[in-house]
């Protein structure tokens, strides 16, 4: 009876199937990928050096630092994210 339900649902013009979800996700993903392509080439090195500095003071994982770069219409955003371990306060 699934077939019957589907038939009336699509006949009523309700969003059908998973393809529309796929398309929406792809549009976002691809826009994101394309923005990342224009990233300045110094980012990975910058990330490494910041990580090295942080590690002088706090024990963090090697993937604790992430730098993201985004190009908006009139400006660029450099976002720095550092994940500190649960008990990072030095005793």
């Amino acid at each position, binding site marked *: 009876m*699934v*077939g*019957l339900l*589907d*038939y009336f649902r*699509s006949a009523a013009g309700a*969003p*059908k*199937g*998973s*393809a*529309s979800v*796929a*398309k929406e*996700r*792809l*549009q976002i*993903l*691809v826009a994101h*990928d*394309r923005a990342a*392509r224009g990233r300045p080439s110094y980012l990975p090195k910058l990330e490494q050096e910041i990580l090295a500095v942080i590690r002088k003071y706090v024990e963090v994982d090697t993937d604790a630092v992430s730098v993201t770069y985004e190009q908006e219409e009139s400006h660029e955003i450099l976002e720095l994210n550092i994940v500190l371990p649960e008990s990072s306060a030095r005793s």
Partner: protein
Amino acid sequence: MARIIVITSGKGGVGKTTTAAAMAMGLAQRGNRTAVIDFDVGLRNLDLIMGCERRVVYDFANVINGEANLNQALIRDKRCEHLYILPASQTRDKEALTQDGVGRVLEELNKSYDYVICDSPAGIEHGALMAMYYADDAIVVTNPEVSSVRDSDRMLGILASKSRRALESQEPIREYLLLTRYAPDRVARGEMLGVEDVQEILALNLLSVIPDSQSVLNASNAGNPVILDHESDAGQAYADMVARYLGEERPMRFLDAERKGLFSRLFRG
């Protein structure tokens, strides 16, 4: 002067080798001197699809390393006198293909061929980079499915930044989209991305839409490029691909699901 065409995708298993075989055979059957090269080091497959696996003596890496000359390694197709196949090496050394070595082989082919088809391996690493580096044209093979479309877009980024044409600031590679394994009935039910959806995202010149078809499997079982199966939907869609690549205008085919009666729609699945 040979035109160098890379068949690429990023994602694996989408139909690159099937397409390379069809493209090469289609161009050669129209009288163009055509060579098709398998760049998939360690995973040689093109020879099987072309049905010449038992005639492989030397391979691409042998030629690059000077262990054989190009004419010894090229296999002449038994069905079409203008078509030659250069098989991949089965070595596990993924760096068997050097940029200089590939360049030298292409330079030599350039003298006596009209088209050189490069069948890229999957991925975006060394082998795939070697296959696309010298390309003039790229056929980006894509399945109507999220990861394939995404990888195709990434490959477009690579073509635009890492190819010789990009690095030497020449006219960019001409990029074409080939949508394969298309299932119109699933598209009609909203279960699969449609041609327009993929076009909207990738915005490329569409060469053809190849239906998902049993005839592709039959062709590879027999070692005959599917384009030789003139009766089949996939064979005809590939023939359209070649014609459109050469500038002919043809309406798109095989986009619509077979019309089914209300009865089968009500009670399917």
